[in-house]
């Protein structure tokens, strides 16, 4: 990964109260690339996204976005930076009291002085880009899970962000929607010339589309590389994760004490 970095994470540590969540994370997200951050639920993936978005402040280390340390920015600076970012939330987080049209137009109306006719054209273009032109008058409650995710994607790219973050974009989707969303993430990244970060535990779908992968376990990076390198990794945790093996470094059994002793069985 040689091109210039848009996001740099250096030696980031983070703890909730005294519980360490991130332990010395180093990551680089070069411009124009699509990069996945993978790991089990609760391993700290979403916490990394929250650091990049400036929601959380590291206890040690720094996060730089577009050359600026994000957690040193004041609220105005942070909001200015966030206008150049887009984030797709796990279940879309569409505004349920607005139509599809108003959802996609939301940022345009909040952050620009564009006349309503131009906003209309832009919204239609965004909807067309995610294949849902014609749904503009529907309410979010009338959409299927896959459609809602695509509308949320259209809203995320409303202002053509330089950085797009995806928090579990594949969660709860049927196989067709899964492929559609995966393809859209890749296509939009290339068409917009953006940099994309996908936080996911869906190995198969994400390995098809990403340029590079970081594997996180228990708040630290345990493996990284291209999709092929990850598929062929010798690291036992990565192997268990990628191939979905039942037992391995992540044990099948919860560490619940001595089962035999509990039943009174002498072994």
């Amino acid at each position, binding site marked *: 990964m040689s091109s210039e970095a848009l996001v740099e994470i250096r030696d980031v540590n983070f703890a909730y109260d005294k519980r360490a969540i991130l332990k010395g994370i180093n990551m680089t997200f070069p411009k124009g690339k699509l990069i996945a951050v993978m790991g089990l639920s609760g391993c700290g993936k979403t916490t990394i996204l929250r650091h990049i*978005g400036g*929601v959380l402040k590291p206890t040690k280390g720094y996060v730089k976005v577009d050359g600026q340390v994000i957690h040193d920015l004041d609220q105005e600076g*942070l*909001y*200015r930076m*966030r*206008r150049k*970012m887009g*984030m797709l*939330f*796990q*279940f879309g*987080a*569409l*505004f*349920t*009291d607005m139509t599809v049209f108003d959802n996609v137009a*939301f*940022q345009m109306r*909040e*952050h620009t002085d564009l006349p309503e006719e131009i906003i209309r054209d832009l919204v239609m273009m965004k909807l067309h880009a995610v294949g849902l032109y014609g749904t503009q008058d529907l309410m979010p409650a009338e959409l299927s899970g896959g459609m809602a995710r695509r509308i949320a994607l259209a809203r995320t790219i409303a202002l053509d962000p330089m950085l797009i973050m995806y928090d579990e974009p594949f969660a709860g989707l049927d196989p067709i929607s899964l492929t559609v969303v995966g393809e859209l993430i890749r296509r939009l990244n290339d068409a917009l010339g953006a940099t994309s970060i996908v936080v996911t535990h869906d190995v198969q779908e994400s390995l098809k589309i990403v340029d590079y992968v970081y594997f996180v376990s228990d708040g630290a990076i345990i493996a990284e590389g291209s999709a092929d390198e990850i598929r062929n990794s010798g690291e036992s945790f990565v192997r268990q994760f990628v191939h979905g093996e039942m037992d391995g470094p992540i044990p099948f059994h919860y560490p619940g004490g001595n089962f035999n002793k509990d039943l009174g069985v002498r072994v």
Partner: protein
Amino acid sequence: MAIVSSLRSIGSRVINAVWRIGYASRFFMMTLLYSGLSFRRFRLTVREIFFSGVMSLIIILVAGMFVGMVLGLQGYETLKRYGSESALGSLVALSLVRELGPVLAALLFASRAGSAMTAEIGLMKATEQISAMEMMAVNPIARVVAPRFWAGVISMPLLAAMFSAMGVFGGYVVGVVLIGVDEGSFWSQMQGAVDFRHDVLNGVIKSFVFGVAVTVISLFEGYDAPPTAEGVSGATTRTVVQSSLAILMLDFMLTAFMFGE
């Protein structure tokens, strides 16, 4: 040991309560600070006035009518004993304008619109709509909270006025139309007894204060609700309980200030 642990538990509750009061005050200050948008784009506030004010109209009008009718009936029965039935108009109007209008309208507003605000904001938080707004560089206090706050503050005195007007009409229907109290004395006694500044204006001030209290409690409880189904339901219940107690407590304090000797 038991004493130590119970002391610790009391201490932790007190610290928690103080912390929440501090957080709520900060939330209130932030709401005031970020209120500019609610007036620059008044359309946002008007939309909320529709949901919290206009949609509460039916319950306010019907309740006002019945309260006025009961006042007319009870007032007549009591005044008859002293041969002062003609004072029915002033009794109905003063009770409504000074006390029942602002207090009952605020209690109804808390249960109808306050609980809805809490549930809406709590669910917006639970479904990450608030976080999404923040990530889009849109301040949720300015965009979501402040318009609802001002809508509540504007709606409350208007609803209380409607409640009182409907109550007076209810009292008229029962007292004059059904029982047969003299119409002329009903209205003229009312006109003579009700002072605009002392009674009407004080009633308006009361309902304004209740409006601030109810909307701040409702919005804060929604914004602070844990993002779970249980969290939102608990917050909605707390809104109704705390708002009702706050209304009654504030009413006593305001009455003491306004009408005490």
